């Protein structure tokens, strides 16, 4: 089948200017001038000749330059080995390429040639021959006479996929309601757990915090966990403690005893996609997530004031124990981190709740 082009009524309409055919070949300078040709030849040889030199330099550098050596270039410290190995190896590789391209452009024949193109489709004869062969095969297969064969094979192939898919059911534990309650819906915070500084692990007293201060904290019990459990619990239990002037913040009735003299405690995990938040604007009491800029008002129970997050930041109810240390009164009252499908977050704290 020849290439089907939409043929207008006359060829003049399709091509108002007749195709003048390929441009005449213009002789290259390197072909016309012997010395220019010789120069190109020498250039290619020089480029290829430099490659072994650089390759040897690479090997010498690999063994001779100490791993810890640095060089100062442009006022920056460069790792000498990385820089020198890359320089010799990179330039050598580049020269091979440049030499080949220079060779192709200046020395190899440069006459453009045209090749005919055939339609992607097969010829009508080929199609007929194929159809005939197909019919023969189909006839031999017996599918036409014993019609259930095809359906049975299709069904068998379809259903054999089911065991293959089922094999993946153990990819991870199933987040049933019971498991969710044990995992994403709880943290290790509980009544009486001390709030400790996340670096020094020292328990915090109310007197350790001044107005305007923010402290990153963890539950004291976090270090009872190790390895994966440690990371999983840390990913949920991280908190920030802020102290604000009680006169300048809104505390709803239901949360009056969640704080200690203007010391409030919130989950550090953003309710948007779970980044740890701690960009604290002291004067506005806003907390900004550095990942996607959701902004929460900590002076107003952590409601969202800007950005893509849809839920308030969960607040951890705290109090002071007999020794004067800040402790949790319970776990978070709502799950921390991003919302998930199975739980309606509509009843979480919103602006105006009491």
């Amino acid at each position, binding site marked *: 089948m020849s290439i089907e082009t939409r043929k207008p009524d006359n060829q003049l309409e399709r091509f*108002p*200017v007749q195709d*003048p*055919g390929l441009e005449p070949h213009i002789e290259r300078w390197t072909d016309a001038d012997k010395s220019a040709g010789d120069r190109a030849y020498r250039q290619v040889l020089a480029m290829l000749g430099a490659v072994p030199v650089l390759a040897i330099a690479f090997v010498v550098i*690999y063994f001779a330059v100490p*791993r*810890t050596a640095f060089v100062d270039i442009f006022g920056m410290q460069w790792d000498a*080995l*990385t*820089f020198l*190995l*890359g*320089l010799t*190896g*990179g*330039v050598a*590789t580049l*020269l*091979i390429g*440049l030499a*080949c*391209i220079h*060779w*192709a452009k200046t020395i190899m024949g440069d006459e453009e*040639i*045209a*090749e005919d193109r055939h339609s992607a489709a097969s010829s009508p004869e080929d199609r007929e021959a194929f159809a005939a062969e197909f019919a023969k095969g189909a006839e031999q297969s017996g599918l036409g006479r014993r019609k259930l064969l095809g359906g049975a094979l299709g069904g068998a192939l379809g259903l054999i996929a089911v065991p293959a898919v089922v094999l993946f059911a153990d990819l*991870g534990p*199933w*987040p049933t309601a019971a498991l969710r309650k044990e*995992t994403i819906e709880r943290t290790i915070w509980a009544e009486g757990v001390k709030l400790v500084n*996340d670096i020094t692990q020292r328990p915090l007293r109310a007197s350790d915090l001044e107005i305007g201060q923010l402290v*990153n904290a963890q539950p004291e019990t976090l270090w009872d966990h190790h*390895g994966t459990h*440690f990371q999983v619990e*840390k*990913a949920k239990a*991280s908190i920030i403690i802020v102290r604000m002037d009680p006169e300048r913040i809104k505390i709803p009735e239901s949360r009056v005893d969640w704080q200690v003299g203007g010391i409030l405690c919130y989950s*550090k995990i953003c309710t*948007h*996609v*779970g980044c*740890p938040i701690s*960009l604290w604007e002291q004067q506005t009491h806003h907390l900004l997530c550095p990942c*996607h*800029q*959701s902004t929460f008002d900590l002076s107003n129970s952590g409601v*969202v004031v800007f*950005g*893509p*997050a*849809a*839920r308030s930041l969960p607040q951890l109810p705290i109090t002071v124990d007999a020794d004067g240390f800040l402790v949790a009164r319970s776990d978070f009252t709502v799950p921390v981190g*991003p*919302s*998930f*499908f199975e739980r*309606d*977050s*509509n009843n979480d704290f919103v602006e105006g709740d009491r």
Partner: protein
Amino acid sequence: MAKPADVSTASPALATERPPKPGGMPSGVTGVATWADERIGLASLLKKNLRKVFPDHWSFLLGEIALYSFIILLLTGVFLTIWFKPSMAEIEYQGTYQLMRGLPMSEAFASTLALSFDIRGGLLVRQIHHWAAMLFVAAMTVHMLRIFFTGAFRKPREINWLIGVGLFSISLIEGFAGYSLPDDLLSGTGLRFVDGMIRSIPLIGTWAEFFIFNGEFPGDLVIPRLYMVHILLVPGLLLGLIAAHLALVVYHKHTQYPGPGRKDGNVVGYPLFPVYMAKAGGFFFVVFGVAILMGATMQINPVWNFGPYNPAQVTAGSQPDWYMGFVEGAIRIMPPWEWHLGGTTWSWNVFLPGVGLLTGLFIVLGAYPFIERWLTGDTAEHHVLDRPRNNPTRTALGVAGMTAYALFWIAGGNDILATQFRLSLNAVTEFMRVAVFVGPVIAFLITKRICISLQRADSERVLHGSETGIIERSPDGGYSEPHAPIHIEEKYTLTQHVQNTALQITPETDGHGVLEKGAGVSRLRALMSRWFHGGAIEKPTAAQIEAADHHADGHGADGHAVDGHDADGHELTDSEESSQASR
């Protein structure tokens, strides 16, 4: 039991007949070639393809850069796997990097530090690998734009376009998986974002999250799993798709830009052997050399500055690798939309800009060739590329898409913009929320006007030639600029394109009052088609060109080599003249 076919017991041994020595080959080559040919029939395989013609153009190198970057990624990636340990097991670091001695970290992070500080050349290869990944996605993106704007996706190349879209989409997954492996603070933050994105999928989000992470984030299996995805699953898919992509390029033969002697029925260029072997092979070394030099001189992903992953920390200014920037931007500017239905939460604020935008992009890209075909009704094969101006609506759509992508991408740095230019972060975000919708519309309108202006300029050039820059004064005091006729080759190039016209509504009944079924054109399709073809300038007809040539010849006879108007006794502006010519 099937009866065995007759086998002649007395069959003569297959004698290899040595053909006469082919002339013109060095004896060493002949020996090897003969050996191979006797075993795999090399000569008949290569006789046609050895001198296969490839057209020359810089924009055809973009796909090559992507291909070569992929090869570099395979080579450097193998090197990295020799030392990298894809394990989230916690160990205490005791390596060379003093600042982290004694810190608890995952084996993945510790082995990345070892590769960077203890293995000679390890840091170089790590950096080449990361830069090559950047190049790979970038080259692929620009290559795709070239294909789009020149209409190279049209019949018979729609399947190859779809393969390309598939390659593009899984490359993003490949890049993201690789970025997550070192288990540093930045990549861990990216992984946590993906955890949130997966969780936002309606109905199955929590299940998908638990299945992928083996429970809660971060768990201890996600890095080994991503390692498998990164070094086995996706590279295997990429390799297969790239092979199919190239096989189809060979089968269809490369497209070519319009020009004299270039037709849909031929391909003009240089032969594979030796010119393209040298040029394309050489170009591989150029790309590799540049990647090595980038790895040697430009630091990338210095994980030792970020530290091991800590789920309680994040750095301000955290951003993904560039190719995920548009998703990041969409996530940032999305308003906080959530639905609450019957005890469930639908997190549109994360799902739409994350999963929705990515899948939407791939669906639109994949569907475009078929949408355009629906609008033009064009069933012909195309091997000569479109000049972007000759399809103004497609070009404008492409630029609108690029604008949307760029705006989303810029929004991914809204915090950086705000701090660098001392703007309000909130104002930047609010602005981007509007700009991502308005910007593409403005870009569409401007691009379409520019294309139409360029078409008009082409038409002027064909009919009136090029401006000479000489101002002539006529005896009665008028001034005019004579035009020099352009060469026939340029004239052909400017007029060879197909002039598509809008589809007309097929009447519901034909001449005999019989209802037509099937191939008709509905009112909607005709309307959309009219919009698609709207505004395009009709290319000059043969009659107009002849008239214009004649007009020029008339003056050429009196000694003027150029198309002057001075002897006419009146002055014509170009537009007056073109309207005259079209009469």
